[in-house]
């Protein structure tokens, strides 16, 4: 028998999945934005608005080759747009590919806005959360949920998530916040504040 505790959660998950698929960004737009943000963080700035399509393709292929996680991120984007179109099997294979190539395991419930930079991979993101554009996500990060809920923590614009940081449960992280390395965040982080430690405490604010 199914645990009745989980039944409500599964129902909610199904509903949220439908919502997430309905508002997925287009594949091309998402990849171009990701490319733009990744290039900016890598110090290879270029103006993607003025660039021609072949040049963008060249930049994307180049970043897939030289970047640790960009290929996996493109796989993730492809997987989500396929899921939104209802294509079976292939999304799961793309998920395995992004796990194998960059240890990236991002749940289908997650809504990643276009323009997120994942530095090297090694991230686990789960739950119904939203990651705004301009975020920087370092390795060994978990952004996820606590048992008994499907809601993860929404992350604001241009947030820096340091190496090894864990953000768990229903909290919100404000715009331009900084999560220090190895921080364990279980409470809300206001905009522009730096938090560090286990459990994380504010150490600096803008």
């Amino acid at each position, binding site marked *: 028998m*199914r645990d009745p505790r989980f039944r409500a959660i599964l129902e909610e998950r199904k509903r949220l999945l439908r919502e997430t698929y309905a508002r997925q960004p287009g594949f091309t737009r998402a990849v171009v934005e990701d490319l733009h943000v990744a290039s900016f963080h890598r110090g290879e700035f270029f103006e993607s608005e003025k660039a021609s399509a072949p040049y963008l393709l060249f930049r994307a292929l180049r970043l897939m080759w030289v970047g640790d996680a960009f290929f996996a991120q493109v796989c993730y984007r492809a997987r989500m747009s396929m899921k939104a179109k209802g294509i079976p099997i292939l999304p799961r294979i793309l998920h395995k590919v992004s796990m194998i190539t960059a240890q990236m395991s991002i749940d289908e419930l997650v809504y990643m806005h276009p323009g997120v930079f994942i530095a090297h991979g090694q991230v686990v993101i789960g739950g119904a959360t939203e990651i705004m554009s301009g975020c920087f996500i370092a390795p060994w990060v978990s952004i996820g949920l606590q048992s008994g809920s499907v809601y993860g923590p929404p992350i604001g614009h241009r947030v820096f998530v340091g190496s090894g940081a864990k953000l768990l449960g229903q909290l919100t992280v404000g715009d331009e916040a900084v999560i220090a390395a190895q921080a364990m965040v279980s409470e809300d982080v206001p905009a522009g504040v730096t938090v560090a430690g286990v459990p994380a405490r504010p150490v600096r604010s803008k």
Partner: protein
Amino acid sequence: MSEISDKQMRRALIRDLDLRRPAFAAAVKLDAQFTASQRGERAEFRSARDTVFQIIRLMWVSDAFAAHVAYRMRTELSRRGIPILPRLLHRFCMRSAQVSIGEGVVMQPGIYIVHGQIVLDGLVEIGTGTVISPWVTIGLRGGSIQGPVVGNDVHIGTGAKIIGPVTIGREALIGANAVVTRDIPERVTAVGMPARALE
């Protein structure tokens, strides 16, 4: 002379560990049931055919279950003295879900590896009903090969590190990013760096 006896000791140790490890089919069935129940899915399998179907389904939908089954297969094959294949299965575990489990580890049946990304090494024992989150290390401190003994129904949070010859009591909760270097009693929540018990 002493080197030979070292080798014999090592063999005896491995034989001893092999005897304590669960049989493949029973272990995979219990793992599948526990994984399904933790995922909020039907955990009671109706027949042998249903069991096989559910195991294959979990290998497809769950991040780490394929690696988990490969690990069970690997311990079974190395118990039977089959060469090369166990090492290949270990490589598969590391590739598919970054699960790296050493030869000295005894995993009781019925364990849930949430997404993979774990390192377990040394003489470690993991009890039934344990949930292991991503980025967990259960391993050694320098100078000893005795690793942690984790009791039944322990929940290990994401990024937690349990190192050295410590004992984790049953039904304990290890918080995210905790670094455990001392014994944790039963039913206690431990958090922080170094980990301390919460009330």
